């Protein structure tokens, strides 16, 4: 059974998250988005943990997976289009932020933690508190504790728990971050490096970029949404084929067998916030070569620019992009699909902002008629898309699937701008083409 799986999300107990981000919201949006297994996020936070205990029940026969209590599900299910309804499994996850000095520089690294059950979570949190860590202030707690030592604590607590370095290329907060990280995984995890088996690639990089580093060949490359609101769930995710249980999930991530870890769904990396280099305040977006030519300075204000993911990959890569394009890839390489979030496609089709009511109306209409977001993006055929959303939508989805779009790449915290149509392509022709008019009515 192919299961879509988003392991890195946050609750409302994390800073800068949506205030209504509770288990009910996650349950509903997982169905709308088409996600079968969703991380709880934030299990280190006592308040969130209490809700997990209160609102989740263990799924019989699927150890380590949890379901929302049946009595809570009823009212929520009524709001979910029939075409989207599906089982939602929760798995215990958290993200931690580590800020510490190593080898003379300040390192800031985020890690994703998976736990097999609530008992392990409880014991881990108790140990962290006993060591003086503060878990109350933020669902993604900040520790002045080196990643290696934290990992040791996790392994001592339970060997089945796992640690996955999060969004490994983000400049400010990651393992390889240009402003925060290391050049080699060993420099971060030292003697415990062999116990790391998966890496999260983050929004601004895709597996192909990561294949350029032979030091990553032995890791499973996973993708998650890092959603701070339920609507962003599943914008990147993993496709796995397992008997549902924590141990099988972990095994799929650890061994990356082609029949178990099927691949990932990705952002176009250019859409990520840190793909290129640049300086946001000056709207200076720079290709890596351009940054090198300018000596790393902003052409407007001459301050240091933020070095993005592409440059950082270039700096650490030992395979050329051409070699990867020609087919050079590690044995763990799995297929991946690059997609644009469906609401953004709808917004492009309607020619209005993504937050507008019209986008929401059409988006929900599509879910009603065609099924989940992920299903629409990956599987629904052109004819059906045309019937539910018009010719322009069918064409937009076709172009996204083919990768035939323009992206002004993201840089220095600014998301990339997607453009599927040229302005004249979208304007409805005056002369007839009635089927399109339904869309704008």
């Amino acid at each position, binding site marked *: 059974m192919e299961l879509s799986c988003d392991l890195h999300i946050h609750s409302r107990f994390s800073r800068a*998250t949506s205030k209504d981000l509770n288990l009910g919201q996650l349950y509903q949006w997982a169905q709308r988005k088409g996600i079968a297994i969703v991380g709880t996020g934030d299990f280190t936070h006592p308040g969130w943990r209490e809700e997990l205990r209160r609102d989740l029940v263990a799924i019989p026969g699927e150890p380590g997976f949890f379901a929302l209590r049946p009595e809570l599900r009823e009212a929520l299910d009524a709001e979910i289009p029939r075409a989207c309804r599906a089982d939602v499994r929760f798995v215990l996850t958290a993200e931690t932020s580590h800020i510490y000095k190593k080898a003379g520089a*300040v390192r800031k690294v985020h890690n994703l933690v998976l736990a097999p059950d609530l008992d392990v979570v409880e014991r881990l949190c108790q140990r962290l508190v006993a060591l*003086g860590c503060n878990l*109350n*202030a933020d669902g993604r707690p900040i520790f*002045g504790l*080196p990643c290696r030592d934290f990992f040791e604590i996790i392994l001592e607590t339970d060997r089945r728990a796992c640690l996955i370095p999060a969004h490994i290329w983000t400049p400010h907060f990651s393992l390889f971050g240009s402003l925060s990280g290391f050049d080699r995984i060993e420099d971060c995890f030292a003697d415990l490096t062999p116990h790391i088996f998966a890496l999260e690639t983050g929004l601004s990089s895709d597996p192909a970029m990561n294949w350029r580093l032979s030091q990553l060949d032995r890791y499973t490359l996973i993708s998650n949404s890092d959603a701070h609101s339920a609507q962003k769930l599943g914008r990147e995710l993993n496709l796995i084929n397992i008997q549902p249980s924590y141990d099988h999930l972990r095994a799929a991530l650890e061994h990356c067998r082609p029949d178990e870890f099927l691949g990932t769904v990705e952002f176009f990396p250019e859409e990520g916030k840190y793909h290129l280099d640049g300086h946001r305040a000056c709207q200076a977006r720079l290709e890596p070569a351009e940054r090198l030519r300018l000596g790393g300075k902003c052409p407007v204000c001459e301050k*240091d620019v933020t070095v993005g993911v592409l440059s950082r990959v270039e700096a650490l890569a030992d395979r050329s992009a051409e070699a990867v394009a020609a087919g050079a890839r590690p044995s763990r390489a799995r297929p991946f699909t690059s997609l644009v979030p469906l609401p953004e496609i709808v917004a492009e089709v309607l020619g209005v902002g993504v937050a507008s009511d019209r986008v929401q109306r059409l988006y929900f209409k599509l879910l009603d008629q065609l099924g989940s977001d992920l299903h629409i993006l990956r599987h629904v055929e052109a004819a059906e898309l045309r019937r539910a959303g018009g010719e322009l939508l069918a064409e937009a989805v076709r172009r996204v699937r083919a990768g035939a779009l323009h992206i002004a790449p993201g840089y*220095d915290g600014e998301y990339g701008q997607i453009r599927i149509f040229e302005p004249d392509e979208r304007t409805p022709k005056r002369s007839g083409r009635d089927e399109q008019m339904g869309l704008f009515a």
Partner: protein
Amino acid sequence: MSGEAPAFAALQGLTAAQREAALASGSALVVAGPGSGKTRTLVARLVYLLEAGLAAPHELCAITFTRKAASELRERLQRAVGDVAQTIRVGTFHQLALHLRPQPQAVRLISEADRHDLLAHVLRSDSSVGSGLSEATLRRRLRRASQALSLMKGRSCDALTALGQPSASLPTEDDAAWLHPALAAYQAWLQALDLEDLDDLLVAATQAVRAGQACVHYRCVHVDEYQDTNGVQRELLIALAKAGAQIFAIGDPDQSIYAFRGAERGNFFAFPRDFAGARVFFLRDNFRATSTLVAAATALLSQAGDREAFVDGPPPQAQRERGEPVQLRAAASPRSEAIAIAREIERLLGGTSLTSHDQGRAASSASGCYGFSDIAVLTRTAARADDVALALQHEGIPTLRPRKARPLYTAESIARGPDERAADDRSERPPERAATQSPFSAALQHHAQRPAWRADAGLVDLDAAQSAERSYAALRHALTCDAEGEIGIAHESDEWDARFERVAVLTLHGAKGLEFPVVFLCGSEADLLPGRAASKDEVAEERRLFYVGMTRAKDRLWISHVGPPSPFVAALPSRCVQTVAPPARRAKPPQLKLF
């Protein structure tokens, strides 16, 4: 002697002044300002004595103020001379005192908890207080008695005999009516039980050295932080000198901050008289702080004018670049002060979350060069430190607020007002003993006989009552004896775990001897610094305390206050200070939209 000096590896890399001090022959007093390479000089001196064959390792001894300082010194010696370092006696005065005793294994120390129980027992059984004491009164008296006891025993080796003479003056003026008999009763119990407390340990060691009974003979004794020694410690050193030791004392009279605990700054000035032929050396280069910070701290002290001329020496010489000015910031409340500090910490780290980047609290390209453990927040009182630590935690910043179960009588509370004592009761009371009575205090209560205090007796004569001895023996059995390891007075800085990086939140007293790239002096308001201090001496001590706080900083110093600032702030030259206006209210981050 300095002609042959370059041959010694120990002296390599020292400045001329450091080298001169390290080479001193005979007793020496080294006046060492903040960041002047005090420990480095001390290590060099010890290594030089070994290299030059002037002393064998077991003839060397170095006394530090805290256990943390001792272990650091030990590590540095280990690096310099290898395993030989383990033969050098390095420790606190209490640890040294134990080793000087003829039979260290036979020394029976009363534990802190039992000391507390014994004092409480003595106070409760005061027959003059008819129906007994209220719990609140008892607690107050306990605290007072505990402090008075330590002060008295720390003043001089002969102070104890004063207890035998009703007219003798005690270290506190009021309440003497109950205090005097209580202390005598406490001491009688100790004698009857054949026990000592930490204060007795030093007195007994001094007496042993004087009597020629010390089992170890040191040729060279080194003392760090000499400005904070008390009367008995000075007497011990004089006794050691008479027994043939050279005394090498290092310290800074401008950093003497423990008068309330019995430290006598006068010891520093008396050194040339106490130790015949002693020479005085000066370490005036400041390698720690930026020149702006050195200038600011120096200006603060120029007000004081309470040093004896001979320690004045040359003025401090800053050895570093100019750096940033001191940031001075007013805050509306302690809470907003803590939040402002939290924001500044975020900036210093180059952002702790993406939110800090989105809201402009970190330059987008800044990686930050400071980690959490490069930063300290210092306060005048423990209560304020607790509050600011809590507020920083609430902002998600990992903090270290050291809290050792400290002996009651090391508390700083004597320097505090009543409202802060209330705060003390919340935060610093030792674990409640009344609830779960120790075997010792239970046994005490069933003991019919009260021992009698005999000031002249080295040992209490127990022959008179065989039965009493048996029952005392039974009582002793209920005691736990803390023989080594934990001997000494716990200090805030003792509790340090380098693996976890955290912002240290310390009292000014607790920051003694430490240094941090970034220091926040929080709560620098007139109410707290100098606070209620009235006498000239008290104000001077508070000023030194502020000086100690300022001189902990290497790169950046931030001073904040709620309400009128401390008058010490006004002493800082305006060219060294930048007043930071509170930031304009930032617009709320945009509401999260559906998509």
